[in-house]
């Protein structure tokens, strides 16, 4: 017993340390957001005043609204295109590595390079920058992720049920809508949530493709400018809210992915 314990102990200590390292900074932020003084110097009592300040800050509200618009549009467009892309890639007889590399390039290319590439591209087209250019950029970025989530599901997809549906007289469209789409739905929703989370959190690409005006500022951009001015307690509250939203979306997405492994 003690031998088994001593063999397990180092592993537990390692995990404790690493998880401590990973979660301590986050825990401190969440805790501070409820600190009346809002500064790390002292705890002066529980308070939700920083959340109140958040709701009263019009800059933050506008940024949140912009973020929501960008995320919703980018999610819808990239989910539709990503699903079609995944289907197209999976039903192709001959696998093309070049095509795959191109579709997944946005996942590996350093953000700043992608951001710069999009900025130069938009200005070449003579497109005025704004929320729409952020949306287009996010679609490109999210697309790869949606596509890979849907493709993972397609790998285990039994194409004989599509054939069965066709044999039973269903048209191509009916088969897609009543069979393929239904089977893929959990992974499409998971992909959409992933795209939404990524879009809400994405900073660098939005920063570069937003243009000069303050009208198209998104939440991460707002956070960045707030942080640069030093520690403001409001950021703690904002950070807690943003982390809560992304964690929730991620948990739902995980849960959906888990569901699909059951059959």
């Amino acid at each position, binding site marked *: 017993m003690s031998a088994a314990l001593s063999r*397990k102990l*180092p*592993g*537990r200590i*390692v*995990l404790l340390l*690493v*998880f401590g*390292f*990973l*979660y*301590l*900074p*986050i825990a*401190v*932020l969440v805790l501070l957001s409820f600190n009346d003084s809002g*500064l*790390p*110097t*002292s705890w002066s009592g529980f308070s939700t005043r920083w959340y109140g300040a958040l709701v009263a800050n019009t800059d933050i509200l506008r940024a949140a609204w912009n973020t929501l618009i960008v995320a919703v549009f980018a999610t819808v467009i990239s989910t539709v*295109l990503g699903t*079609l*892309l995944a*289907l*197209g*890639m999976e*039903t*192709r007889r001959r696998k093309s590595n070049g*095509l795959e590399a*191109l*579709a997944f390039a946005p996942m*590996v*290319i*350093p*953000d*700043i390079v992608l951001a*710069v*590439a*999009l900025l*130069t*591209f938009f200005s*070449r087209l003579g497109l005025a920058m704004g929320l729409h250019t952020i949306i287009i950029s996010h679609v*490109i970025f999210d*697309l790869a992720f949606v596509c890979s989530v849907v493709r993972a599901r397609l790998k285990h997809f039994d194409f004989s049920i599509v054939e069965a549906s066709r044999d039973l007289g269903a048209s191509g469209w009916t088969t897609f809508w009543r069979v393929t789409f239904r089977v893929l739905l959990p992974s499409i929703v998971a992909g959409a949530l992933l795209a939404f*989370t990524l879009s809400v*959190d994405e*900073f*660098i690409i939005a920063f*570069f493709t937003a243009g000069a005006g303050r009208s198209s500022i998104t939440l*991460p951009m707002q*956070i*960045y400018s707030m*942080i*640069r001015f030093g*520690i403001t307690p409001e950021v703690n509250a904002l*950070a807690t809210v*943003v*982390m809560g939203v*992304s964690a929730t979306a991620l948990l739902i997405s*995980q849960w959906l992915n888990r569901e699909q492994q059951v059959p």
Partner: protein
Amino acid sequence: MVVPCLLVLSYAFFQRGVWGGVEYTFTLENFARVVDPLYAKIFLNSARIALTATVVAILIAYPAAYAISRAPRMTQPILLFFAVLPFWSNYLIRTYAWIVLLNREGLINNLLRTLGYTGEPLSMLYTESAVIIGLVYNYLPFVILAIYSTLSRLNPELMEASRDLGAGPVRTFLRVTLPLTLPGVAAGGVFVFVLSIGNFVTPALLGGGRFQMVGNLVYDQFLTANDWPFGAALGAALILTMIVLLLLQARATAHASGERKAEAER
């Protein structure tokens, strides 16, 4: 089927167009500037910082991934999920958390004072170490994941065989486990390195702008100096670095799996 293919092609065109467009305007002069000592120094400096972050991340991630792979089967996915969860929270917020901790008026200095430390508060923020801590913290979950994925695929019989043949735990680890999991280490390492070298947020926030990295340079060229061709040349150099590293990693992985195949055939 035609629509998605056309889409892929159009997206392919998208990115090419960008690079092609940039290529139009540039002469070799911009690349000459990239290798100019002044900028080459920044490149090398970024590479050094990125490399340090990569090594530190691997040194922390390996034991963690190893411990997770040794945990009971049922708890492994849960541990893994919680190891990766911080990765999904906003990058800026994670970086900001370190400002709060490392600040002169921050939590660590406060803690030291409560513990009876009376000297000058430590200046931990705006140092190279702060930048490295930020980079390690932000990319650690991915390295844990990458190393875990190779560890979990490892055949435990190999370790048993090594033990049976008289090798101690240390020797078994060094001669069997470690070499077989190097592809995961390489994958995680390349990831940290590539993202670190092009990073501009962490050096800007935790380095206080005192540490120029390639990412900051690219940022400056595009948004401050307005020298797009040079910024693009720097970006191209980044991409090139990345492609070389990814190719090396793919080679190493192929090499490792080839060896394993050869062993299996024997």
